[in-house]
């Protein structure tokens, strides 16, 4: 909801991908009769990879797609640069229909506008770090001097200065994925597609790479689709998160929306273990000021600690520790709401009814 005002850089409209020889017939049958995944498998011997996925990503936004392995994330992201043809639906990049592009236009799009990072790095073992990083420039016929310049900038950006003449197998896994990242940003693309880029790495290294990525991202403002099977990573990195299950996007929303208003039991199970402290805002747990007044009548808000609606639970806890009063929520100078101790505790627990409970 926060992104609708932004210009959509990537827009996917009703993407379906059915794998198999009879995918067309399966697709027709699905549209007419609405078959389930199992029925499609049994009747047409086809696998449904993606089922009617629609979403758009605004300029500069980081859009996370989260789901368990086999849920169709890799299949979906490969539609954006048309490494996979959809069975139905289309993809638009900055208003241009990717599925209507000629082979030449598509190559130009891939080389200049889209950078991609892969879970298994997919570096070319016979090329040095530098030649890997500027591969997309080389295939466009850009001259050596320019390539050297661009490679240096990209390699410096991922903290690999001095490693440009090494071969991938001389680098650790984390460093290899830094090369992958450098290769993706080298051509200064508009869009980054990241397919579980850090999943194969050790937790500590993963954390370092997340940090590098977020610093880069803050600096470069690339429109990013980021795939992960780790909800913590999605929450840490994403502006918005889409939850994917069996090829279907079951919910799309901000991290706070996903955590506080899970669309179904599946999402609820996922978010159950997530700490709400840095996600949930005062606006979500507060009781409207008028309602509080009506129920409690007395009390002088002058001595109460004051918070803003967008303050996170963590900040509210700090405020609540020094006082016995409830917390007053003010926006633009007006009293908009009250967070009682009870509502705060319920909010930390992640109970939806936090604000509605009578103090």
């Amino acid at each position, binding site marked *: 909801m926060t992104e609708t005002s932004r210009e959509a850089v990537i827009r996917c409209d009703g993407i379906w991908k059915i794998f198999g020889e009879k995918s067309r017939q399966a697709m027709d049958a699905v549209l007419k009769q609405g078959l389930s995944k199992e029925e499609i498998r049994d009747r047409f011997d086809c696998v449904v990879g993606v089922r009617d996925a629609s979403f758009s990503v605004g300029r500069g936004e980081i859009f996370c797609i989260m789901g368990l392995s086999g849920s169709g994330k890799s299949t979906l992201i490969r539609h954006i*640069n048309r*490494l996979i043809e959809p069975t139905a639906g289309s993809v638009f990049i900055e208003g241009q229909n990717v599925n209507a592009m000629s082979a030449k236009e598509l*190559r*130009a*799009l*891939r*080389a*200049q506008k*889209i*950078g*991609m990072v*892969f879970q*298994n790095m*997919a*570096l*070319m*073992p*016979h090329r040095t770090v530098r030649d890997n990083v500027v*591969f*997309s420039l*080389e*295939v*466009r016929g850009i001259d050596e001097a320019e390539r050297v310049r661009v490679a240096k900038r990209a390699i410096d950006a991922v903290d690999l200065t001095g490693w440009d*003449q090494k*071969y991938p197998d001389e680098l650790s896994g984390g460093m290899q994925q830094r090369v992958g990242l450098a*290769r993706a940003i080298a051509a200064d693309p508009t869009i980054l*597609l990241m397919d579980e880029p850090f999943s194969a790495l050790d937790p500590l290294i993963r954390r370092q790479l997340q940090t590098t990525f977020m610093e880069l991202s803050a600096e470069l403002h690339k429109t990013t689709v980021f795939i992960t099977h780790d909800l913590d990573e999605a929450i840490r990195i994403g502006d918005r998160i889409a939850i994917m299950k069996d090829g279907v996007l079951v919910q799309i929303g901000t991290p706070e929306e996903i955590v506080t208003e899970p669309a179904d039991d599946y999402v609820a199970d996922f978010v159950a273990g997530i700490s709400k402290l840095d996600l949930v805002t005062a606006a979500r747990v507060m009781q409207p000021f008028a309602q509080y007044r009506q129920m409690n009548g007395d009390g002088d808000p002058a001595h109460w600690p004051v918070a803003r609606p967008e303050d996170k639970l963590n900040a509210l806890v700090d405020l609540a520790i020094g006082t016995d009063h409830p917390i007053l929520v003010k926006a633009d100078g007006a009293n908009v709401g009250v967070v009682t101790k009870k509502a705060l505790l319920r909010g930390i627990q992640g109970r939806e009814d936090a604000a509605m409970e009578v103090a």
Partner: protein
Amino acid sequence: MAEDKTFNWLDPFSSVDLDVDGRTDGIKQWAIANREAIQPIKGFFDGLIIRIEAALQAVPPVIMLVLLVLIAWQAAGRRVAILVAACLVALGFLDPAAWSLAMTTLAIVISSVILCVIIGLPLGILAGKSDRFEAAIRPVLDTMQTIPAFVYLVPVVMLIGIGNVSGVIVTIIFALPPLVRLTSLGIRGVNPSVVEAARAFGATPNQIMFKVELPLATPTILAGLNQTIMLSLSMVVIASMISVKGLGNEVLRAMGRLDAGKAIVGGLGIVILAIVLDRITQGLGRSGRARGHRHWWQAGPVGLVVGLVKGRG
């Protein structure tokens, strides 16, 4: 056909004669009839082989020996170079005529292998890319490798006549399959995610072929080349039956005269040549980085020269 014999259900084969040999013998007539048409092509290849042989014979043995040792050093390192040097010296002292005979054989082998590469590499790439082509060519390759050489010796001679060109053709028939097979295997063995990455960064199909697939398949392709060279060498005795000169011919003649000594000399010459070519091509197959340096021009005699030039400049 076999009208006189009564048909027996338990042994139908001896009473039915489809006359396969009589019909296929027509290939000989066809070959003889088309001799004229083939002559210009034959002339071209004959010239090529003669020129290669003349070049090899023109170089004084000691200079050729040094050249081969340098190539071995560059391709496979110092130890192989020493082995190659020892082998070549032994070859030279085997018999006063051995060196010259070996060069003749080498010329035939080189011609055959060049043609094998020209034919086999594209076929192998195609087979690596297309399952249908692979399925179609596989039985052909099996046939080429298993059919006894004597079967195609006659039609080839009828069509082209005895001599070097026929020798090269029968050698190719036998030596080509491993190159096609291993090229296909090498292309199929390339990590698909690397190819996908190349596609994702905007490479054309040709660029994917030459910048990703072929370089990554090179070690396997070179293993195929090594096999092809070895099989070419193993054909030299059979090729000498259709009047190809060289070491093979020595063995054949010695056999005719039951001259064990001469046969051993010719045979050893072939073995030594095989060892030399095998070690050099195997060295090519292993990447330079596996032997601890990054680029081929940083090692071996070239590395030495480059180092000297850089050291001065």
